[in-house]
Every structure is written in structure tokens, then in C-alpha cells.
């Protein structure tokens, strides 16, 4: 297990932490604060789990960005999925989606009321379901970032090969680079370093970020999910801030290649096209989503069943939008650990273990 344990060596962690404190002290002499955003739910989870926030100097702040796909899924999307269960259509989904609040209910509620909701580990489980139940319409909930998109749209390829007509995808895919731009443009966010996602980058590669880093001059490091990866990433960002540089560095070269994963990218281009997407709590970001191309509309659940995934009325008291943009920390939300807990989440950030509020709840209290 050297590819796991070796990346959790605590003496190496102390050594890097020491360097981080030295760099932070230099920044502090210049009255500088590092405000580093991790844009990936798995980073958020790792940072909370290994207590990384607690060992950092005061002037190094880690902010969780909108990198949990469940957290940025609109209430209207959940409403649409629930409405499908009321038409005897079966929903197949990753388990995280069950407790996400829609406008008034969750998919778990819909299931309690007799709706058919199947939890899948892989999108191919949904293909199997469709094959075994030819009379039943199966809709897979297509949420996720670039990492999840290729596995999900493999459903279309598989369904075409096996001539399955009873399976489709309700797409709400999201793309990371346009979200980075929106965050960099947002005056309230004020982040001066990005810890870029590991496995999203495994798909899209290193080079796609170059224009962004050049345009906004924000230090950016692609980092893996192990604690030493994250610490090295933070150290690299502090070095850049200290030297007033803004570069793109790939600290996760053992997985992330310059050009990304060609096969996965080709599949995305073949089946999908960019579209505006609505991010819960943040709003619409131009061309930050993907929908199925016209030729594949038989597999597009929103067209097949004429449903809209727009509108929706989430609980307005939830401040996920501010949490996801780093404007407040989860415990600054008045509902945190009161009305809103992982067992009874009010907002989506408390649902998935990758959500900022849930990670905070579990490890940081």
C-alpha cells in the first residue's frame, strides 16, 4: 500500500508544515494573507479529515469552493427528478442525491411515498437495470464535474450498442474552468490562490488552465488528495505569493497529464455540447455546463419527458451560496448544527460528505 501510506508520512508532513510556517511568517511581514480556495469536494473532505486547517498559520486561510457536485445541484433539478417518479419512471442515481432538498421534498421522501429510486455505484448499474426491465423507463441523474461526465455518458454508448431504448440521462453536468473564471471575477470572493482539483484535471489536463492563470494572475496548483499532496500544494502557493508570482504548477503529475485523458475528452466532445448552467446558490454561469447533442436527444430525459429543470424554490435561509464562494465559513450560517445537520440537511452543502458544511460538521467542531 505504498501508494497510500507513503503519501501520509507524518514526519514529511511536519517538515512541509514547518516550511509553510516560515513562508507564512514572511507573508505576514508584508501584511499579506493567503486566501486559498480548494475547488474540489474531495480536497474539502481530505482537509477536514486530516485536520489540515488546524495546523496552518493564522494568515493562511483555506476556503472551500463550489466543488461538490451535489451541493451545486439546483432545487429545480431535484423537483424535476421527483416529478418523474410520480409518472412511474424509475430514477437511478448516485446515493448522495437522495437527501438533497428540492423546493419542498427530497428524493428520499419521494421514495418513501412509493417512487422508484435506485442507488447505483456505477452508471453501468443503470444500464443493467434498463436491460433487466425492458418495460420500465430508467432515468439516470447526470450530475457531476468533468471526472464524472465520461462514466455517466458511457450509458449512451452502451445503450446504443445494446439497442436499449428505455434509458436516458437528466443532465446537470458542471465544468470547473468557467466556474474558476466566475470566482475570479466575483469581487466578494477575494481568493489569491487556487488548489486545483486532482481528478477533474486528470480528465481535462494541465494546459486548459493556462489562459485562466495568465488572465487573472492567481497562483494555481493542481494537487492530489493525500495530505502530503495538499500540504505541498499549499506550500507551493505560498512560495508563489511570497515571490509575487502567478504560475500554474502540476503537483500531481503521477496522474495528471498535460493534455488530459484523450479518450474521455473525445467521448465528451462526441456526445455533449457546452450550455449555460445554473449553480445552486451562485446563479447561472455561461457555458459552464454540458448537454447532450441534438443527435442523442433520445437519451436526453428532459426532452424525452418534456420536463424543465429551471425555477425551483430552495429554502432561502440556506447560505450555501456564500459558503461555496468563501464569503462565510459553514459555522457562520445561523442554521449550522441547529436546524441543519447531516441527518436533517436544510441545504445541499450539508448532504454529501464532500459538502463544505458536512465536512465541517463531521471533523471541525
Amino acid at each position: 500500500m505504498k501508494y497510500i501510506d507513503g503519501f501520509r508520512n507524518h514526519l514529511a508532513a511536519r517538515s512541509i508544515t514547518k516550511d509553510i510556517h516560515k513562508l507564512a511568517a514572511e507573508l505576514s511581514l508584508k501584511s499579506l494573507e493567503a486566501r486559498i480556495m480548494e475547488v474540489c469536494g474531495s480536497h474539502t473532505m481530505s482537509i477536514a479529515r486530516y485536520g489540515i486547517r488546524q495546523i496552518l498559520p493564522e494568515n493562511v486561510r483555506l476556503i472551500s469552493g463550489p466543488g461538490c457536485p451535489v451541493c451545486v445541484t439546483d432545487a429545480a433539478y431535484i423537483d424535476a427528478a421527483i416529478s418523474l417518479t410520480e409518472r412511474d419512471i424509475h430514477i437511478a442515481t448516485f446515493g448522495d442525491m437522495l437527501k438533497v432538498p428540492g423546493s419542498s421534498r427530497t428524493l428520499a421522501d419521494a421514495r418513501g411515498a412509493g417512487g422508484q429510486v435506485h442507488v447505483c455505484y456505477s452508471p453501468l448499474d443503470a444500464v443493467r437495470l434498463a436491460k433487466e426491465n425492458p418495460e420500465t423507463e430508467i432515468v439516470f441523474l447526470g450530475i457531476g464535474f468533468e471526472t464524472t461526465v465520461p462514466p455517466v455518458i458511457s450509458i449512451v454508448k452502451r445503450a446504443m450498442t445494446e439497442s436499449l431504448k428505455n434509458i436516458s440521462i437528466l443532465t446537470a453536468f458542471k465544468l470547473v474552468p468557467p466556474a474558476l473564471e466566475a470566482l475570479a471575477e466575483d469581487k466578494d470572493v477575494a481568493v489569491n490562490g487556487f488548489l486545483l482539483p486532482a481528478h477533474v484535471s486528470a480528465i481535462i489536463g494541465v494546459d486548459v488552465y493556462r489562459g485562466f492563470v495568465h488572465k487573472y494572475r492567481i497562483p494555481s496548483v493542481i494537487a492530489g488528495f493525500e495530505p502530503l499532496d495538499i500540504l505541498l500544494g499549499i506550500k507551493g502557493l505560498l512560495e508563489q505569493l511570497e515571490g509575487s508570482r502567478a504560475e500554474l504548477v502540476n503537483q500531481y503529475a503521477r496522474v495528471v497529464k498535460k493534455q488530459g485523458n484523450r479518450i474521455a475528452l473525445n467521448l465528451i466532445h462526441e456526445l455533449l455540447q457546452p450550455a449555460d448552467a445554473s449553480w445552486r446558490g451562485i446563479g447561472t454561469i455561461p457555458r459552464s455546463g454540458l448537454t447532450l447533442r441534438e443527435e442523442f436527444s433520445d437519451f436526453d430525459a428532459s426532452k424525452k419527458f418534456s420536463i424543465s429543470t429551471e425555477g425551483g424554490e430552495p429554502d432561502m435561509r440556506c447560505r450555501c451560496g456564500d459558503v461555496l464562494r468563501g464569503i462565510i465559513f459553514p459555522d457562520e450560517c445561523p442554521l449550522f448544527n441547529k436546524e441543519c445537520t447531516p441527518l436533517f440537511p436544510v441545504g445541499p452543502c450539508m448532504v454529501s460528505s464532500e459538502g463544505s458544511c458536512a465536512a465541517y460538521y463531521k471533523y471541525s467542531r
Partner: protein
Amino acid sequence: MCLAVPMKVIELKENGTGVCELENIRYDVDLSLIEATKLDDFVIVHAGFAIEKLDVAEANERLKLFIDLAEAYSAEDNG
């Protein structure tokens, strides 16, 4: 949703799938999104699909850096 740790490929099947192992647990994994997988490769698995291979040379180099850092740290600490 994302099992962030690399798994070892222990069996290749004809239909572009394989069996991977992590801590003695075996998983069926679709290998259609990566190129030329061989036995004993390490792969990153997400939602039942291998999404990229681990570059073992790169990984080993990193591990060496961490071992060096750890050694230097304990030498300093004890000295």
C-alpha cells in the same frame, strides 16, 4: 463518489473491463476510458470506471522526496 486512491489491476477481461484490487477488496472496473491497460497497472477509479493510470515512476519519485524530507526532519529534530 471519487475513490481517490489507486487500485491495482489484477485481471483483464475481454469486454474492456477488468478486476481491480484495493486493500484485499476486489472491484469490477470498466477500463474503456483508458489506453492499453496491463496487468499490475495502478489505476484511479471513479464511479466504476478507471479514469487514468498512475505513472509509477512519478509516484516513486514523489515517495522518495517524502522519505528524504522525513529523514531530514528527524535528523534536525534529534540534533
